[in-house]
């Protein structure tokens, strides 16, 4: 019996076996597939190559059908978001038969990393001041402004995405990047703290990983999107959980006209989530 996962050497997709200026770097190995950091066309253009390898246990006909469908669906959703002004990685190239998708590389760190580091520093400074350090973040303290501003930007990004008829399907703070503000890009008027903090939570929200996303304008689907994020947020950043309902909901309302109906649905989804029971 092997308890530990042996480090695996995965075969590269054929496209990555051809010469390039840098060796492709395996970034993540998820259930969906593998993400490589590589280059597109020129050494100066970094790119994220998402590869869905064949699943040998699946019937080959079914496997090809699913891989093709999912690659195309993800590409379509990203292209649509990009056209409509939702900040997502651009699609460079698609080979649905070979099972890969080449996307714009998004600089910066996931929101999860920024928030956890921010919470850690906050705890350390609380402790240094002789307090417990595990107090929940309410958003009212002056030092909370950066996190509140970040939550507002997240809510804005989600509102914009929902407005254009896309649901993400897997919202977590790992699936949002904080991309350094680019030159020549306007920063949002609100949702931007004004830099009194240490810059940890600065940056533009870029939504990534649309592998489970779809086109939908159903308020139920949108509410489930928010619910998934709420659960993920609570388990990843328990001390900042309270901010979710307060800040995120109000900023989502500002970003999206349909928000009141979605948030009402969210209330139902929450109730169902707690009560969900199955027959034996």
């Amino acid at each position, binding site marked *: 019996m092997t308890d530990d996962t042996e480090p695996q050497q995965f075969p590269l997709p*054929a*496209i*990555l076996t*051809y*010469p*390039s*200026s840098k060796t492709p770097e395996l970034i993540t190995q998820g259930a969906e597939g593998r993400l490589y950091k*590589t*280059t*597109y*066309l*020129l*050494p*100066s*253009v970094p790119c994220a190559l998402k590869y869905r390898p064949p699943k040998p246990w699946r019937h080959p006909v079914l496997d090809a059908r699913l891989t093709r469908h999912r690659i*195309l669906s993800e*590409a*379509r959703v*990203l*292209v649509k978001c*990009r*056209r*409509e*002004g939702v900040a997502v990685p*651009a*699609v*460079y*190239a*698609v*080979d*649905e*038969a*070979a099972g890969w998708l080449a996307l*714009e590389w998004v600089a910066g760190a996931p929101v999860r990393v920024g928030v956890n580091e921010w919470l850690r520093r906050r705890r350390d400074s609380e402790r240094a001041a002789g307090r417990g350090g595990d107090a929940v973040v309410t958003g009212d303290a002056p030092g909370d402004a950066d996190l509140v501003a970040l939550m507002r930007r997240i809510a804005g990004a989600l509102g914009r995405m929902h407005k254009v008829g896309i649901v993400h399907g897997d919202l977590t703070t790992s699936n949002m990047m904080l991309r350094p503000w*680019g*030159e*020549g*890009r*306007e920063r949002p008027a609100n949702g931007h703290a004004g830099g009194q903090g240490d810059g940890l939570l600065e940056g533009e929200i870029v939504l990534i990983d649309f592998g489970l996303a779809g086109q939908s304008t159903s308020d139920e689907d949108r509410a489930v999107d928010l619910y998934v994020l709420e659960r993920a947020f609570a388990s990843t950043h328990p001390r900042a959980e309270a901010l979710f309902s307060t800040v995120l909901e109000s900023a989502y309302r500002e970003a999206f006209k349909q928000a009141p109906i979605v948030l009402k649905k969210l209330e139902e989804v929450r109730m169902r989530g707690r009560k969900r029971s199955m027959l034996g």
Partner: protein
Amino acid sequence: MKEPEKAPPAWLETIRLEHVPETHSVHVAVFKDIENAEFLHQQLLGRNADFEYAFIDASSVVSRLQVLSAIFKSITVQLNGAMKTPNIHSEIVSSLSPTKNISEAYRRYGITPTSKNIIVVRVLISPSTLTAEDVEKHLVDNVQGVSRPLDDKTLSGFTDWSKIRKYYKLNGVGWVDALKDVGVKSKEMEMLVLGGMSLRGL
């Protein structure tokens, strides 16, 4: 995307694309104010084997990356044995299109008898009897126009934006139009063009 300017501009630039096998070499040239578009177009229609090039009408192009992207996709398709057109060069022209309609792609992105500025691409696949020098000489002898480098500055001077907006369905992108920084705006347009090409109406 700003590549260092090649000076002095060569007739023919050889480009090493990432993730393309050694067997494939890519050669590109740009000609401004061509005078024999009709002749070149005729060679294509007559399937003259000596003129196996991708002749792209530069008015339908926004950037260098867009051209390279079409070339890369065609090589990928050729390697997969999944070409939808007669050869890799016609494949490059049709790869520029965001739809599956091949004859429409030739009309919109390929050379026409009235084309003014063109981009020429030649992919040599080894073993090939031809060299880059042969290709360059053939172009010098047969294309009547002013050689220019394949860079964004040159290409942007040729772009017909009304065509681009129509072909890539970019008329409803008010948020891009509202961008103030010209560089950011054209980069964003380029990304939308690449996205459209990548989906080919799928």
